[in-house]
């Protein structure tokens, strides 16, 4: 390698990863984009060449548009709920003694490794008509008859929150560990009680973690497939399910591809807007 420029060396080191990315990510994506610009054989009026007909359908057919809208809504609600559940856990993790911290972190990693199907099945059982949650509600007299909780948007959201929790907790915990303790102490010395010191300084300073966690969670929820399939119903289908139906049942690859590309674009657009907003609000941070 004598005489090789550092740039060439760097490129050669990156090459395997680049090849992998191109072969398994960019090529299928490109194929899908191209597919989405064509007509399917069973379209009413098949046309040759590339056109935007499938996108027109995504926007104008009631089912796919509603599914896309629902996907954004479910993802936004799930992200917000995940944040609300994850933040106290991350704070606890940050404050607790080393032994407990390790125990909780291991639990989180184990849950990441366990099968999504198994976890969703767990929620199906838990939220079932005769499941423990309903039994508790009946026993406490909160409900007179078992509530229908499974196969709904709500059940989907609960399971999505559960699934996304580690992706929210870890970045927030990471951001908390980077806040120098002197900030909280400075707030306290200036007369802020523990809670006000927390909300006045820790919360704003953990913003990078909140931003990372919400971005990850939102992207994960937008592309969710198994969870809404198991815990929702056809009436609460998310866009990935509707697209899968086109791929697997209708065998309409162009229409399915257009939905996936539309999903990708919408996700990207929302996250871009979110990033710009956060940047504008927190532009003064060092």
């Amino acid at each position, binding site marked *: 390698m004598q005489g090789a420029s550092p740039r060439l060396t760097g490129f050669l080191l990156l090459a395997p990863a680049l090849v992998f990315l191109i072969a398994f990510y960019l090529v299928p994506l490109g194929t899908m984009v191209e597919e989405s610009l064509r007509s399917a054989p069973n379209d009413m009026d098949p046309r040759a060449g590339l056109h935007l007909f499938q996108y027109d359908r995504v926007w104008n057919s009631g089912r796919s548009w509603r599914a896309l809208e629902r996907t954004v809504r479910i993802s936004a609600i799930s992200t917000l709920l995940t944040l609300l559940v994850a933040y106290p856990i991350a704070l606890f993790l940050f404050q607790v003694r080393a032994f407990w911290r390790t125990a909780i972190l291991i639990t989180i990693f184990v849950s990441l490794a366990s099968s999504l199907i198994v976890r969703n099945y767990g929620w199906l059982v838990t939220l079932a008509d005769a499941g423990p949650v309903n039994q508790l509600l009946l026993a406490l007299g909160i409900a007179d008859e078992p509530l229908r909780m499974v196969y709904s948007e709500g059940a989907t959201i609960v399971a999505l929150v559960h699934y996304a929790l580690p992706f929210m907790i870890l970045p927030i915990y990471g951001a908390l560990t980077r806040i120098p303790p002197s900030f909280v*102490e400075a707030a306290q010395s200036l007369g802020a009680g523990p809670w006000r010191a927390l909300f006045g300084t820790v919360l704003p300073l953990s913003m990078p973690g909140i931003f990372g966690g919400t971005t990850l969670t939102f992207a994960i929820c937008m592309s969710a497939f198994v969870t809404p399939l198991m815990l929702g119903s056809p009436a609460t289908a998310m866009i990935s399910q509707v697209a899968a139906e086109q791929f697997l049942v209708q065998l309409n690859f162009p229409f399915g591809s257009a939905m996936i590309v539309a999903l990708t674009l919408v996700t990207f657009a929302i996250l871009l807007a979110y990033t710009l907003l956060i940047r504008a609000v927190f532009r003064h941070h060092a």
Partner: protein
Amino acid sequence: MARLELDRVEVTLGGNRILHGVSLDVADGECVALLGPSGCGKTTTLRAIAGFTPVSAGEIRIAGRSVLGLPPHKRNLGLVFQDYALFPHMTVAQNIGYGLRMRGEDRASIAKQVAEALALVRLSDMAERYPARLSGGQRQRVALARALVIKPDILLLDEPLGALDRKLRDAMQVELKRIHREVGVTTIIVTHDQEEALSLADRVAVMFAGDIREVERPATLYARPKSRAVMDFLGEANLIPAEVTADGALRLPGGAEIPHGGAKPGLVRLGIRPEHMAILPAPGPGSIAACVTEIVFKGAHASLYAEGPAGLALSASLSPAALEAPPAIGETVHLRPDPAHLILFEEDPA
């Protein structure tokens, strides 16, 4: 503004006793520097006063009342942290106003006090800046203004100038002195820079290994320290083993004797500052022969280092005039301690 009393304060952290009964009495409006080597417990003392570190025994009183039962936010202390801890998401004015907002003061009164505090630290034109866009010295002043604006009973500063370069540090020392004079708040300043301690404080408390060894006015502490450790820690010092003879003279290494009354016969240590060592070309009464090992130029003066009998390390100050024709390395000189500035310490039991 108030008097601060530490009464045999003990702190234990992680099973280790960090403070072994620290006692200190700071008068109303006084500025005391806590000086000591790294790890001796200066920050721990400050944190105990502020309420961030639990005290296992002893008492801390502010204005005569115990504060041990009070959480940090109720102690009404102004703290300046070594890293300043300015809130990055707030402007300079918002940072300074934070403590007043926590006290529920109204907007107009906050604005007025913030403006006054900014004027005090001479940063009036920086009110709307964010900390990320300030220089180190400016951040330091914002931190000071933020701590002072709440009219604290005690101002606690932990290595406030540690992060600044030499020149800025000198300028800020002058600023700190001016501000302390104008505000007159009881102040404790932690530092391991002895020049800073000697120049800023009304009294200096020297701390070693969790103990305050001596509390004195700077000039007294430097000229007449009570212990050998303090003499050695503060500035440069010669510590010469000597013997008090039966007829009341001091026998120096090498055999020379100087008359000295009042000490019990036995082994002693003589403490003497380099500036009180005369450098003679030929042996004189009470001089010690030594071989020059190094001459170091230090700006206002120069230091001569030499090796006396039995490997004894000695140092002396060279005046600018003497530096014109300094002794050569390896040359033998004769160093004579000025009897008027000799301090006698008991020899440590070997």
